[in-house]
Each structure stands twice: as C-alpha cells, then as structure tokens.
C-alpha cells in the first residue's frame, strides 16, 4: 500500500463517516458541523487532485459561507430538533433499501462495467502551478465567459428572489 493510497483511504473514511454523521445526527447543528467537516475533507481531496483553486473555493464558499448560513438559520429558527413523529412509517426502510440498491448499482456499474480508465495525478504535479491557475482563469473568462455571466445573473435573480420571499409588504401580516 502506497502512501497515496493510505492517505486516500483515510480521507475517504473520514468523508464517509462525516457524511453518515450528518445523516444520522439528531441535532441539526451537529449535522451541519459534520457536513462542514465533510466539505473540508473533500477540499483536501481537491488539493490532492491538483485543484487548489477549487479547494479554496470549496472552503470559502461552501464550508465558510454556505454552511455558516445554514448554522445561522438553524440557530435563528431554533429548529435543531424536531419532535418525533412517524407519519410515513414505510418511508425510512424503503428509502434505505433503495439507497443501498442505488449505491450497489452505481458501484457495480462503475467498477466492473464502466471502468473509467486512468489514474489521478499525484499530488504536487505540474498543474498546481501559478501558471496553470492563470491559464484556468483565462479559460474561465474566455471559453466560459457565457456561463460566468449567466451565473452572475443567476445570483442576482436569487437575490431578488430572496428579497421577494422575505420582505414584508406594507400592510401585510406575517
């Protein structure tokens, strides 16, 4: 077992464990924190895979901004826990069964049938240079100009949307 692999396995274990932690935590706050951990782990993967920019984005946007927002909302609403009700008794077993089938199906398909070829670059390979980062930026603003601009519109729309949703109209009761 190479060091790479060992590192991968450990990180993978952490990622899955944190994901499961999120899944099974009774308390929403814990869930959110588990998810943050998971995101960070994934960010480490990004670094390993030679994508430092994405790794940074992951930490700042996802783990930083988005998850903080989540936590903020959880705290604001005081909705860490839900009272136990069980209106959908068959939902849980069915969901777990289906998810397991999904995982098995995709694993089977990916590992034994599709077999994506090739190996990932070793950490610290030549893509991780500033030049490459610049090249990526160039791509982003040339080839990917359109999606970039559209995304900006999207963010604007989201903003408008949020305002519409939350702003209280004059004379409107909440």
């Amino acid at each position, binding site marked *: 077992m190479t060091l790479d692999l060992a590192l991968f396995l450990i990180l993978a274990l952490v990622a899955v464990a944190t994901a499961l932690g999120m899944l099974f935590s009774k308390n929403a706050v814990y869930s959110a924190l588990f998810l943050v951990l998971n995101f960070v782990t994934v960010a480490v993967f990004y670094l390993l895979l030679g994508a430092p920019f994405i790794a940074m984005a992951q930490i700042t946007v996802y783990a930083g901004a988005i998850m903080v927002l989540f936590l903020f909302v959880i705290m604001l609403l005081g909705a860490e826990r839900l009272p136990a009700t069980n209106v959908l008794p068959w939902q849980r077993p069915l*969901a777990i069964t*289906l998810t397991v089938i*999904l995982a098995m199906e995709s694993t089977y*398909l990916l590992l034994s049938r599709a077999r994506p070829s090739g190996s990932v670059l070793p950490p610290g390979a030549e893509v991780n240079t500033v030049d490459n980062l610049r090249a990526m930026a160039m791509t982003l603003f040339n080839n990917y100009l359109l999606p970039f601009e559209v995304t900006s519109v999207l963010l604007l729309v989201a903003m408008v949307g949020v305002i519409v949703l939350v702003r209280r109209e004059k004379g409107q009761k909440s």
Partner: protein
Amino acid sequence: MHLSESVTTGYFFLAPWLVFAPVIGLLINIIFGGRLSEKAIGTVASLASGASFVVSVLLAWSLAAGHGAAVTVPFLEWIHIGDLELDWAFRVDSLSTTMMLVVSGVGTLIHIYAIGYMHEDVRFKHDPGRFRRFFVFLNLFIAMMMILVSGDSYLMLFVGWEGVGLCSFLLIGFWYDMDTLGRPSWANSNAAKKAFVTNRVGDFGFLIAAFLMFWAFGSFQFDEVFEAAHAVAPGVIVAITLFMLIGVAGKSAQIPLYVWLPDAMAGPTPVSALIHAATMVTAGVYLITRSAELYTLVPQAQYTVAMTGAITALFAATIAVGQYDIKKVLAYSTISQLGFMVAAVGMGAFVAGMFHLVTHAFFKALLFLSAGSVILGLERGHHHAEHAHHEKKPIGKSGKSKAESGHDEHEVFDPGDMRNMGGLRKTMPVTFWLYMIGTLALAGIVPFAGFWSKDEILLDASRHYPAVYILLSIAAFFTAFYMGRQIWLVFFGEPRHEAAAHAEESKPIITVPLMVLAALSLLGGALNLPFEGFHQLGHWLEYTLHEVEAFPLNLQVAGVSTLVALFAIFLSWLIYGRNPLKAGQPDPLKKPLGFIFTGMENKWFVDEGYFAVIINPFKKLSYFLADVVDWRFWHDWFHETVIAGTYNWLSNIGLNLYADQKGIDAFANWLGTATQSLSATLRKVQTGFVRSYALSVLLGVVLILGYLIVK
C-alpha cells in the same frame, strides 16, 4: 320482354289498370272520402273494383282473340343492379286472366255486398267512421291481388303476395280494438298479427325459393325461369319447389301453417268471403299452377305437395265438425277445400285445381256472405229483442230484471254461434235458400258447381295417387257431414235464442250479390264439364299450361263421391235434423265420440301446441336475450362490472387499498368507475409528503440503472 310486340293489338295496354283502377278508387276515398256519404264511398270502391273486372274481361277477350298467346305488358323498370334486372310487367295469359276474372268478379260482388253489410256492421260496433277505411282496404286488396296474379315474374308475384298479406292483416284487424263480440279486447288484433306473422313464415320460404331461383336461373321472370329449368340439377328444383311449398302453406293455409285462417274470421264477413275464402288464400294454388313447369320436373316434390294438400283437407274437415261458430265451420271448410286444390295441383291436375279454385270462389263466397247475412239478421234480431226489453223496462220489477238479464245477454251474445240460432229457415227464407245452394255445391251434389270440380280432382287422384284419393274421399264425407250439420243447426228446428226468433231478412243490397253468386255456384260447373267438347276451362288454360290431360266422366268415381256425400248428409240429419238441438243442450256427437269430439272442438290443440313449442319458447328466449344476456350481462355486467372489477382488482393487488367509489363522482358509474377506482387508488400514492415524492424520483433512477445493468 317476351312477345311485347303483341301489346299493340287488343286491349292489352289496359293491363296496368287492373291495379290502378282500385288504387285510384282508394285514393279517392282517402282524399275525398271524408266528405262523401257511405253510399258514395261504397260506389266509388265498387266501381273501381268493377273497372278492374271490366279490364279483366277485355284482357280475356283480347287473349281469346289472339288464340291465347301470352302477352307481356311491360310497365316499369324496378330494380336494376348488377345482373339483377327486375321489372314490373304484366303477364296476360289464360291462367292469369282466369285469376283476374275471379278476383275482380267476386271482388266486385263482395264490394257491393259490403256496402250494405258494413253500413250495419259499423253501427253495431258503434264506429261509423271506419266505413271508409274498410273500402280503402278492400280496394287496396284488389290492387294487391291483381299485382299478384298479373305479375310476369316471381318477384312481382311476391310483391302482391306480401301485399295481400298486409291487407289481410288490416282487414282481420279491422275491429282492432275489440273481439268478435265487440268487447274491448286484444283478440282481433292478435288474430291479425297471427295472420301476418304466419304468412311471413310462409313468405320466408317463398323468399328462399326466389333466391335459389335467381342464382340457379339468373332470373325471376316466368318464361326465363321455365326455359332454364330444364338445364338445372333436379336437386335445386326440388329445393325451390319445396321452399315454395312453405310459402303456399302459409298463404293457402295448409298444414302446418293453416292456424291463422280460422282466427282470421275476426274480420268482417265480406273479408272472410273475399280474402279468406275466394281469392287470397287461393294464391298458393295459383303459385303452384304457375310453376307447373317446375313441379312437373320433380315428382318427389309433387307428391309432397299432394300429400300436404290431402292431409290438410282431411284434418281441417274433422275440425270443422266440432265447431259451433258459423264462420269457423266455413273457415275450416275453406282450409279443407284449399287442401283439395293443393292436392290437385300437386298431383299435376292443374286444370282440376284451378277449376275447383273457381267454383270454390263462387260457392264459398256465397256461403260466407250468406253467413254474414245470417249474422246480421241475428244481430238485428238481438237488437230488436233488446229494444223490446228496454221498452218494457219501466213497467215493473220483473221487466227490469229482464232488462238486466237482457243486458247481461248483450255482454255474451254471439251472433255467430250456431247454438244461438235455429229455425232461421222461416225468418230468413232468401238467405236460407242461398245457403242451401252453397251447401250443396260445397258438399258436391250433382249438378252444383262443386260436384264437377271436386269430382275432377278425385278422378285424377284415383288414377295416380290412391292414398290421396282415399284421404280426399274421407274429407269429402266430412265436408258433406259438417255442412249438413250446419244447415240443420242454423235453419231447422226451433230458435234457440230470442235473437234468432226475431231475426230479420237482409236487404237487397246484400241479397242480390248473393243471388249472382248462387247462380254461379249452380252453373259454375259448366265451365269445365267432363264431357268431350266441354272442357272450356281446360282448353283455356291449355294455352298456358301445356299438355293438359282431360278425362271423361268416370261414373264410378262420381257415383262413389255422390253417394258418400249423400250418406253424410243423411247421417247429419240423423244426428241433428231428426231431433233438433235445444237451447243449452250439448252437441249430440259429444257423448258418443268422447275425446275425439273434444279434439275436434279444440282444433286438435294445434294452437296450444304451437304456443308450447314455438311461441312461448321464442318469447322466453327473447326476454332472456333482452333482459339477461343483453342488458344484465352485456350492458351492465360486462361493461360495467367486469371492466370495473378488473380495474379494482388490479388496483387492489398492488396497493391493497380499498378504493372508495361513491364519494368521487356520482354520475360516472360506467367504465369510469373502473378507471376511477384505479385512479383513486393511484392518487393515494400522491401522499403530499415531499420525501415520498423524492422516493419516487429515486425509484425511477434505480429502475433506470437496473435496466442498464440487466439489459
């Protein structure tokens, strides 16, 4: 178009007026009849029928002038499609003119008679408005009968055939809202319906025969059919002739389809005389005579026809013995005599058959009309008697009670029942003598018309068909017997009812036509005397029916038949004449004959048998089909339950949820219910829980991936 060039000479061009004269008559009566008096209506109708007779005479005269060469008068192209070319053309030959003369001649007489008869009848039945209708129907009948006898193809014959069936229906059901006694009832209309439907059964046979004919010979036209007949396999011709026999049995009231004719007496008496004795019912005889060339090709069919006729003759004669209704006796007598005719034409004795047809038309019309006269007389008598009661009414209690009893009598009084008659010889002498002439002619006593024609039939039978001869001879015995019985019961002895005592002779408008008919019954035999040089009818018909055999008088046969008849009359005197029947006394034959007489009285229970075997099963089957099969099974159960049930079942399998059908939508209870319950079940999957919706998405994903794995 055979021989159509001959149309240019003679009066043949008048042929269509055979039909159109009565049609014009009926149209006049329909359109203007409302404003015409009864006399005028009757006159118009009689003139129309008379015109038809004049045309017939002119045609016969032209035909004779042309030495009997058959003439076809084309009139109208009817149905032309593919190789089917069906035209309405008139065929004038000796056979058809004979029929025309009989139909229009007797018809006209009966029209005249009916003016008087119906005048009274509509008043007895309290609906004078129907007077006009009667003559419209009567003219229609003459027109249809003329189409029947004058058509030059089997199809035109069939048209007339069905047409007279309709007239028969209309006239039997003339008093459709009552029974023969004038009480509100379904009886008359039932009789009419029975006649029509039974005739239709016969028509079915005719129709099939026609189809066979067309596809075997390629035509319906008489000449073409006969020409082609020789080249066709006998099997086909046997089929054709036998199917035709079904038609004959229907129209000419032979076994097994004769049952309608006795009931047909529900119609007014002129109708019984004209349609159900003299003309329409002989159409079957005419049909076989017309198809002589087909029948002579297949002896087996001939034999069948002859036996049918002979058996019918005997069978009906036995029933006639047990009847009490004056017209019913005559009706069975008619069936029996038709049996004679059918037997005759079946044996190939076409001239004899036609001869008997003609003479029978005379004397049976005479008998029926005389019977009508008797009935009228009785009704008048009854009326008088009642009137007398009513006048007595205020006198006292006894009078009142008598009036009441008179009223009760009115409810049950049957002017046609011979048990109510007796002694009419004195009160209705003219009618009595006319009736006697008819009776002697029917019984076959020399020198009345019936003797000659019946003798010719028996003679023919004795030569070729011994079985038929024996059957017919016995039938002749019964004929004489029941006629004797009738005479004794009606005219001799003492009146058995007040009405009979008060009976009145009929007016000349009624009796004069009777006298004409009586003369014809007396002298009609002269048409075809069995002596060399006197076979006028034979010669006449020979123009049409080739190879007519003419036999000289056979004294042996004639003697036997005369003796039989005389013996029968003597026997009837012994039983009915010597000790006249008293009021309320049962028939003297009842005791000695026991169950045999019961059988005769009840028409051998044939109607009951038909009810049990055909009519009731048909009714039951049709109710079963309609109610159980079509409605409850097919309409309700299959379309509404099975489909719905299947859906329910299917929808319950998967989800095991009961689908409530009622609440969803009340009006959709059909296929909708089915789909609806499925729908209602399926919609429960739509729980409203977003997580289960996501589950559904996941299910889709899993299934698609699964498909990718297994494919």
